[in-house]
């Protein structure tokens, strides 16, 4: 049974939908610039830089070790993995888990993150809910169950109204996530207004805490390197090379570049 379609006043479009889009967009741009102003420099210690490079070297050894002679590969593997004094066995970094209490810079980062992102969203969401309340704003194109009604239809007290019709607060939230691609177009990648990215970072941030991971990273590298074998890529090389003539086309072109341009 088809629901009778509601006809909305076109004033809603003019005075509600467009203003909310503008407000969301401008707030996002302001957030971006504020985050740039409040950014603190991350100072890396010498040890962290050095460790990250060592890990890269070990990974390269595993992946490209087949291009160097067997003896050299074994020498390097021994250097890293030797039982008594291999680098990965010997080096233990002092690990201080970076909890917000002990590390003051992390604390300020967290506060700044909250202030620039969560607070404005709550404030503006609430203000929009208060200002633009009492009427239906738009209809989502897919059917929703009745459970969504109290969430999406704040301020509209109609029991029989289809849950697809939503209030302005939900339009605001739709905008916050939808304008992400607009932000990347205008502000370039990696901008401070990209809220969903920031929320993702906060969730995975715990898993990415670098200093605590160094010891674990070393252990993981040690295991991976133990398993790697040396398959020399140059084994049958001469036969393969000499099976056909060298490709010397266009080696001697008649035109020589003169001067700078």
């Amino acid at each position: 049974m088809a629901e009778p379609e509601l006809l909305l006043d076109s004033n809603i479009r003019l005075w509600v939908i467009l203003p909310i889009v503008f407000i969301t967009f401008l707030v996002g741009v302001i957030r971006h610039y504020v985050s740039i102003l409040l950014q603190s420099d991350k100072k890396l210690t010498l040890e962290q830089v050095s460790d990250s490079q060592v890990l890269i070297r070990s990974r390269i050894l595993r992946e490209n070790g087949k291009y160097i002679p067997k003896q050299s590969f074994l020498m390097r593997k021994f250097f890293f993995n030797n039982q008594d004094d291999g680098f990965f066995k010997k080096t233990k970094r002092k690990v201080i888990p970076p909890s917000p209490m002990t590390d003051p810079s992390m604390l300020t980062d967290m506060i700044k993150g909250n202030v620039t992102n969560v607070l404005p969203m709550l404030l503006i969401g609430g203000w929009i809910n208060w200002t633009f309340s009492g009427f239906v704003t738009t209809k989502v194109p897919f059917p929703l169950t009745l459970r969504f009604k109290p969430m999406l239809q704040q301020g509209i007290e109609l029991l029989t109204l289809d849950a697809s019709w939503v209030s302005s607060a939900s339009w605001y939230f739709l905008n916050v996530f939808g304008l992400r691609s607009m932000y990347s177009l205008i502000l370039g990648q990696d901008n401070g207004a990209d809220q969903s990215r920031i929320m993702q970072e906060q969730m995975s941030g715990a898993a990415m805490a670098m200093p605590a991971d160094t010891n674990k990273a070393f252990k993981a590298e040690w295991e991976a390197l133990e398993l790697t074998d040396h398959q020399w890529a140059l084994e049958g090389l001469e036969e393969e090379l000499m099976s056909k003539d060298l490709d010397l086309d266009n080696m001697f072109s008649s035109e020589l570049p003169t001067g700078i341009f």
Partner: protein
Amino acid sequence: MASVSDMYDVTWEEMRDKLRKWREENYRNSEQIVEVGEELIQEHASKLGDDIWIIYEQVMIAALDCSRDDLATTCLHELKKQFQGSHRVKRLAGMRLEALERYDEALKMYNDILQDDSTNTAARKRKIAILKAQGKSTEAIRELNEYLEQFVGDQEAWHELAELYINEHDYAKAAFSLEELMMTNPHNHLYCEQYAEVKYTQGGMENLELSRKYFAQALKLNNRNMRALFGLYMSASHIAASPKVSAKVKKDNVKYAAWAASQINRAYQLAGHGTKETKCSLKAVEEMLESMQIMPS
């Protein structure tokens, strides 16, 4: 004095793009950079916008290469005005002092940078460069080794170390450094070729075999590497001429050497484009290959 734009009939945008190409591909044609860059700075400074700062840096380093202290000082002055307290500018000031051979003052500047920021690689590398310029190669090698212990991923530094070791005739350690480079850049035929040359210089049957392999690898990566082709010929004939090899190895290497010689002939033929002189030059090539044969001693 004709300006560059007049001589070559180019616009300032083309000059700027050329400078960018030289910058990105790490060219060291300092005289050309100074010619093009000086005109760009003097005539078209306002049109360049923010590009001008990086051009100042590029032209300054090129000017130091060409002993143009006047131009270098101008560039440095502009950069200091714009970026006060910057480590990058301070390093350039140190480089200018190095060019004037005032090494102690330069050393002091670099030590200041390092006190402020101990992870600054540029200052450390300049200190090593000072040691190299003063001819103290053993100390330079020692400092470079310490640097590489901290920053294992710095390929520029590994290559410099390989060069220093080659100058000191310590071929085993040069080979180690080149292996690092080959691992990180497996498709670069030049590292393979240089490694093969070091192995060939070290001598001994195992090293000769390795050098032949790596000359072949360089050829596989770039079919036109003539140096690798000649190296392949030399190492194969060297192994074949040695009295201690088995008959099979000898036969294989004679085959490799013959193939290399035929390819060399082909290359010279192509170079001559079939002109009359080609026949004479081909004969010269054959005689050269004959004379390069290693006779068993």
